[in-house]
């Protein structure tokens, strides 16, 4: 920057300091509370300084709650969400950018529209659909009258049923039905020089080879960014896992954590344990951010164009 005025730097530093305090404050209080005993909390409330019960509280989270197995669910959901989103997005974006198809615009609009209506808005009916994935098909068969035909031929109308509720697939699929990844990759592909495509064609590469030999290796950073983003988003989901999984053993850790509070009806919630749970539940994504922050930033930068 141009000026180096001391007062300016001081003000800037102060703003950043306040910002960091705002971010770190709750995290710090979470940690300190998690490091005291339940009795200490009952007596003193919020803990301003660390205690020595952190390990003990964490151990209790592991022995007394379902959070360990729920962490596994979270991990599977996050991983599944990330992997499926990356793969499906890259394929669809590739098809839309690198092929001469007349319907590309329509397809892209259809995909883009999914960004506008978050799952939280349409959760009721998504739940209904998830309870029978074939219901749209059934409805289609009924409406078009095809089912009458089928009923005449086969004797009974076709009515397929497949509930994905309370399955890992069911937890993941509605999260993947989201266009951000396709959008991101499309933007990225469009920044790749057109000559690269020409060069590959001159070298004799067809669409599949071009995808695997050129596009995929070049998309590594975008891939990583999207992967981190969708992993985090899968991990931190709340509403869908809350309704999509009916048993605690299928629920994700975030839901389990939120459940720890009302679970303790009749007693003051065991906040130290809840906070220890919060720490445990956030540790994987936080480590991920710390390690992959670079990709995250690059990925988000891309999405801006």
């Amino acid at each position: 920057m141009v000026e180096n005025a001391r007062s300016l730097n001081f003000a800037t530093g102060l703003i950043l300091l306040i910002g960091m305090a705002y971010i770190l404050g709750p995290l710090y209080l979470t940690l300190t509370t998690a490091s005291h005993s339940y009795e200490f909390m009952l007596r003193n409330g919020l803990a301003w300084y660390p205690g020595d019960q952190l390990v003990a509280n964490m151990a209790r989270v592991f022995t007394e709650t379902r959070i360990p197995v729920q962490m596994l669910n979270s991990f599977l959901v996050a991983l599944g969400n990330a992997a499926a989103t990356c793969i499906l997005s890259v394929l669809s974006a590739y098809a839309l950018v690198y092929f001469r198809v007349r319907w590309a615009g329509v397809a892209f609009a259809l995909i883009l529209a999914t960004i506008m209506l978050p799952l939280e808005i349409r959760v009721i009916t998504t739940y209904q659909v998830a309870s029978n994935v074939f219901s749209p098909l059934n409805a289609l068969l009924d409406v078009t009258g095809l089912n009458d035909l089928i009923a005449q031929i086969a004797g009974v109308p076709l009515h397929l049923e497949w509930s994905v509720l309370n399955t890992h697939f069911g937890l993941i699929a509605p999260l993947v039905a989201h266009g951000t990844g396709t959008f991101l990759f499309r933007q990225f592909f469009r920044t790749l020089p057109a000559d690269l495509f020409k060069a590959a064609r001159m070298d004799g590469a067809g669409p599949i080879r071009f995808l695997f030999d050129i596009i995929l290796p070049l998309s590594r950073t975008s891939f990583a960014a999207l992967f981190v983003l969708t992993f985090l988003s899968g991990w931190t989901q709340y509403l869908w896992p809350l309704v999509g999984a009916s048993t605690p053993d299928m629920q994700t850790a975030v839901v389990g954590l939120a459940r720890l509070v009302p679970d303790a009806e009749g007693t003051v919630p065991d906040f130290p344990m809840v906070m220890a749970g919060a720490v445990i539940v956030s540790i994987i994504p936080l480590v991920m951010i710390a390690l992959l922050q670079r990709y995250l930033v690059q990925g988000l930068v891309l999405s801006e164009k």
Partner: protein
Amino acid sequence: MSSDSNLFSNRWLPVLLVAPFMLLIAVFFYAPVFQAFYWSFFLEQPFGGGSIFVGWENFARVLSDSEFWEAAWRTIIFMVTASSLAVAVPLILAVAADRKIHMSLPARNVLVWPKGVAGASIGVVFAFIFNPFVGVLAPLNNSFPGIWAPGIDGTDAFITLVAAHVWGGIPFNFVIILAGLQSIPRTMHQAAAMDGAGPWRRIFDVQLPLIMPQLFLTLVLEFTESVTSAFALIDTITDGGPGGATTLLVYKIYVDGFSGYDLSGASTQTAILMVFVIILTAAQFLFLGRRINYER
């Protein structure tokens, strides 16, 4: 773009490539959306025993329901206050972190951390931290009893939600805005400095106008993000209370549909909300999007 030199001409391969994703969004996005609109024209028995077509009656009822409008109004207030804060705070921080001082490196890192903390976890934590008896504001309450009572006072509950939302919303917006700021060429600052503009003036004359695309993006995304985050926060901090003071539309839909098993009512509200969001997003694109399309 229409030229063949840039494109493959295979006919079925692209269909094959898009098909899995299209199928997925057809089933898990469009079918539910369609279902919501469909149900909003019926009175649907919860256990599926039967349904009665009622035309626009559901809409008429919802739209004349003062509860719906209050929830809608609260939603708008939340979106406006929480979303604008969730963009403004990161904006200020990003402008600060864009200056090369010692603090900016750790800040750039730390400010991204909340991205890893789930909305529901934030909720659990903030519920405790803002607890009127044991939380950070307890001393205040000791001196002025009842001054901070999110369990009783709707405004206090609302403030807690906003504070939590902003906390969780900082990273994403911060990163995008910072990226925008950093993509402003150094010479642009130098040119403005030569033109006599100080740092403060440059923020408004150069930096802000130039990161309009990023700001626009954050605003659009923040919009849907606030819906998502709001649900988790409400469900973990306030349960929509006290007295419905924090019942935003998303939460109301969930409660009506899931606790009240009023599928038609919930669907109708969903449908209205969808139309509202679509109109708003379209408006954003039309009014904001158009003005910021200049080349660098």
